[in-house]
């Protein structure tokens, strides 16, 4: 009897009371979180300083002017009023939209076709993958240069070919519609390898058993693609669309090298407009406001993509 009591006492001394236990646990968790924050700190310092703060600052700047050469000055809604009636900005938004739709549709169509071919015909596919990848290594400046060569009036391949076939030569970069189309083609040429490899990787993630099951059930090639592959690829497609929208709405480098926004602003894109207002015209206020417009457009388009492409997946789950 006595011994059990003393044993219980000893046990009590050894174990922690509930409060003590809770305190020790809290201390442990605190130290554990602290350590996690230490792992995060090196990333979050530049993340806050160079991404989060500038992003919020850009919204504040849209109510300011100056800033590049002299300190920024608050001007209220003046920038917004001035860009609301700016036909050059609406033109730039329109050019960017036309460019982005054409470029994304073209590059996705070609990339999906090529990815399907590479997925089906694997013998020797490595050499094609490498060849398609090469344009990705070139900075846009070189891409622009190559396309200037291709479209040059006197010695460009396209004009020499037109000439040889008995057509008139075209001043390609000198006419608005063709100049924008050249930018589309240059960017599609550069991006095709990336998207082909992206869709190829996605296709190879589709479990072979599901396709076999569909084959046994009598589904033909097109049906298998539509009913099995595409639904399974929906999240990949969503990611691709979002990334492509974000990237293509920021087209700038090829514009800078190929056309400088011309002729007559017909290839002026949003980032070209922003850059010119900020660093060429010293119309910084308009540049700040246009940057916020670009942010809003990208956020809206991303949200729409999620709704359209993400919805069906949710319903099924």
């Amino acid at each position, binding site marked *: 009897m006595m011994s059990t009591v003393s044993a219980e006492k000893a046990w009590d001394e050894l174990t922690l009371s509930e409060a003590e236990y809770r305190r020790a646990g809290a201390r442990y968790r605190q130290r554990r979180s602290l350590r996690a924050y230490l792992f995060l700190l090196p990333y979050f310092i530049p993340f806050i300083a160079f*991404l989060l703060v*500038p992003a919020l600052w*850009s919204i504040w700047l849209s109510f300011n002017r100056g800033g590049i050469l002299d300190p920024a000055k608050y001007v209220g809604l003046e920038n917004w009023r001035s860009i609301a009636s700016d036909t050059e900005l609406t033109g730039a938004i329109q050019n960017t939209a036309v460019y982005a739709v054409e470029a994304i549709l073209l590059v996705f169509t070609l990339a999906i076709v090529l990815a399907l071919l590479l997925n089906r015909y694997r013998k020797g596919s490595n*050499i094609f993958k490498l060849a398609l990848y090469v344009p990705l*290594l070139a900075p846009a400046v070189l891409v622009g240069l190559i396309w200037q060569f291709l479209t040059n009036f006197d010695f460009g391949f396209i004009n020499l070919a037109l000439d040889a076939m008995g057509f008139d030569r075209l001043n390609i970069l000198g006419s608005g519609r063709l100049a924008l189309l050249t930018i589309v083609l240059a960017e599609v040429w550069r991006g095709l390898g990336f998207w082909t490899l992206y869709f190829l990787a996605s296709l190879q993630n589709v479990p072979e058993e599901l396709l076999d099951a569909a084959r046994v059930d009598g589904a033909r090639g097109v049906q298998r693609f539509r009913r099995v592959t595409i639904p399974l690829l929906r999240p990949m497609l969503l990611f691709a669309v979002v990334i492509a929208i974000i990237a293509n709405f920021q087209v700038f480098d090829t514009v800078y090298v190929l056309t400088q926004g011309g002729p007559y602003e017909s290839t002026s894109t949003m980032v070209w407009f922003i850059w010119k207002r900020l660093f060429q015209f010293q119309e910084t206020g308009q540049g700040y406001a246009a940057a916020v417009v670009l942010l809003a457009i990208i956020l809206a388009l991303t949200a729409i993509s999620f709704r359209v492409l993400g919805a069906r997946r949710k319903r099924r789950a």
Partner: protein
Amino acid sequence: MAVQAGGVAESDVLSQHAQEYASAARRHRAFGITKGLAAYATLSIFALIAIVPFLYLLSPSFRKSYELFSYPPKWIPSSLYTGNFGTILHQTSYPRWALNTLIFATSVTVITLIIDTLAGYAFARLRFPGRGVLFGLVLGTLMIPTAVLIAPLYIMISRLPGWTHSGINTYPGMILPMVCSPLGVFMMRQFISTLPEALVEAARLDGGSEWLIFRKIVLPLMKPAIVVLGIFTFMAQWVNFLWPLIITTTNDMKTLTVGVSSLQGQFVTNWGVISAAAVMTMAPVIVIFLMFQRWFVQASMAGALKQ
């Protein structure tokens, strides 16, 4: 007799079936071969479209500029003229631009690898309050276009109140704002999540500190992810144009992308010199690419595979 006749008739029917089957199979095979040929032809055409324009730069770089305008066009130069390369090396700051690019892209890559690996590990394996919120924040910033950031970043680097020096035309000013790409953290977290958790748990039970576990167990397993993210980051900075364009104003601080594009103003229609610069810029990258092709291809597939 009748039985035999029946047998003959039956085997006739059978052989007729067999013939039909064989010809159907032949047709099917022929169709398959045609399809295969069409597929390989399509792939070859696009492979050529990807490659040939680069070769198209090669020819003018070895010719005097006026030769470009000869008619009919001569694609193979009659004699190799190397003066364009001399012009680039001696009359422009090309070597300096190459050095700047190397410093810029390498520094961004090294810093990115260190901080993204650490953050990726924390997001994948450590438990702390606010984990979901912070990770969501990082992912959300993927949507912020660079063009939105350039003005505030420029102001910050050039004239932060209290700074005695402007960061314009300095390496830190160029490098630091480029190190916080959200995609890297995302890639690292996804990769570490695929590593067996038991390894980390075992080390934790053995009393290893988080830092020790990270360095001795997680880091060695991450080599492939680090190579892939390294190539990815380096290539992104190698082609980066907008940021170096605005943050450098002196000729000596330009990167290759900005420098080569400025040649177009300097050598207005001297296409020979300009294409020589392009050839010099692309050649080393293509060599490196061919040496490490497997990793390059993986780097661009990483986004898709890690979904």
